[in-house]
């Protein structure tokens, strides 16, 4: 079962996960990150390093996040790989406290 980036990443995009990914499976648009399910090796290294707990193993994912499985698969295929850590989005700090982290 792959790992999935969910809505907590929107307007944050901290990219700690990108630096910890052993196989370069993250893709990015202007809003957030997505995981390519065909490349992800399910190691889970990204999960604990996300400051807003946006990433789930599908097995542990709350039911209301299920649509993100398809979104990650589709968006990751359409977008370029992100391989280096980048600065968070300017909205990250506000979004982070809005989410209670």
């Amino acid at each position, binding site marked *: 079962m792959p790992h999935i980036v969910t809505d907590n990443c929107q307007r944050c995009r901290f990219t700690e996960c990108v630096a*910890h990914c*052993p*196989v370069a499976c993250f893709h990015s648009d202007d809003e957030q990150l997505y995981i390519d399910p065909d490349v992800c090796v399910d190691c*889970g*290294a990204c999960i604990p390093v996300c400051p807003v707990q946006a990433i789930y193993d599908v097995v542990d994912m709350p039911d209301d996040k299920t649509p993100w499985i398809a979104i990650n698969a589709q968006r990751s295929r359409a977008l370029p790989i992100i391989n280096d850590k980048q600065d968070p989005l300017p909205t990250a700090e506000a979004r982070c406290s809005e989410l209670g982290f």
Partner: protein
Amino acid sequence: MLNRDKSRGALHIAIVGSGPSGFYAAEALLRSDQHVQIDMIERLPTPYGLVRSGVAPDHPKLKQSILLYEQIARHEKFNFLGNVMVGRDVSIAELRGTHHALVLACGAHDDRPMALPGDDLVGSHTATEFVGWYNGHPDYRDRTFDLSHDVAVIIGQGNVAADVCRILAKPVDELRNSDIAEHALDVLAQSEIREVYVVGRRGPAHAKFTAKELRELGTISNVTATAKPEECVLNDQSEIELGDRSNVNAVKNLEIFRRFATQDETFGKRKIKFRFCVSPVGLLGQERVEAIVLARNRLEGPAFSQIARPTDQTEKISCGLVLRSIGYRGVPLPGVPFDTARGVLSNIAGRVVDGDEPMARLYVTGWLKRGPTGIIGTNRADSIETVENLLSDVSALDLGSRSGIQALLPILERRGVRTVTFSDWLKIDVAEIERGKKNGKPREKFTRIDEMLSLLAD
């Protein structure tokens, strides 16, 4: 093709060790805007460190990071020098002469000592030995593990303990199509083990397993994972710990342990028994391990720093195999400051330091830098940090007349070292894959260095 003039101006970096941290250091260097030339030195003829010899054979997906390492190794500015042991074939001092900077990525392959009475009895081993043995590491090829008794006890509750437990508990037929070493498969096929204890000195909220690995132990066919309901009751401090939002993994683990505590123990051919708040105080037996004595512990101290204090209440479990998996330590390198308390090279963010002073041109990454924590990907972020610091020091480095591999190879030749190149390794790789085919395995590893080298002599 590498331009010769450009090559003279290259920054020659030697990376010692070819596991994940070494390869991610190479990746970070190759992705930088510096003109680098990398020489990766590895003690074995085979690359990839614990991805080859640590990751469990039934977790093949985790080994896919090798595809990335292969890409790195094929880079024109990268050389692999296998079968070269630093300290035997070449010294750190010599490498500092041949290269502009050294990145030490040798891992942590010593076990933390336990000093347990009876530790030297036959049947008492470290998990390292067992893992190296079933994964075909040449250092552990000739270890013997006697599985002709009912009960095994694993001390420690981290992911290595989970791997070892799974390999002991899993029906052997489910390992036959993995790259597990043939000699281990033969022994596991004869295993009489019925119960595997996995014991931790603190409570269920403190087990270090990632929830994923723990959950898997509850899904092995014909195996029941159990815990004692009374040992899954938390004290107030542990409840506070679990209330912290950063502690999600421990919350999941506790859920899983509590589910295990409701399992019907009579089901299944084999049982996995999790025990908490117990520490081994001794092994009993004449020549072989016949039993382990566990002391019940009491948790003391405030939340987030609770420690286990043994009480005088003890119990004895009859067993024939004890595997210790309580952590690892780096091995000191001559002339390089070592932090004995932490078992790592003395360093600040990857710069090796003598006291507070950085040692010029000497860097460390991976387990040897931060200790034996994290998983494969953790090393990528760790090596990125080390390489960032290395590159930011470069402007101040004396780039003198160091020529990297051109200076190193004559030293090795003079000492009669049979250097294994990456294309040599690819021959070994192809041969292993070919050997595996007849048994339906992805590969059958060569487990002796002589075998590997004689293959290259043809």
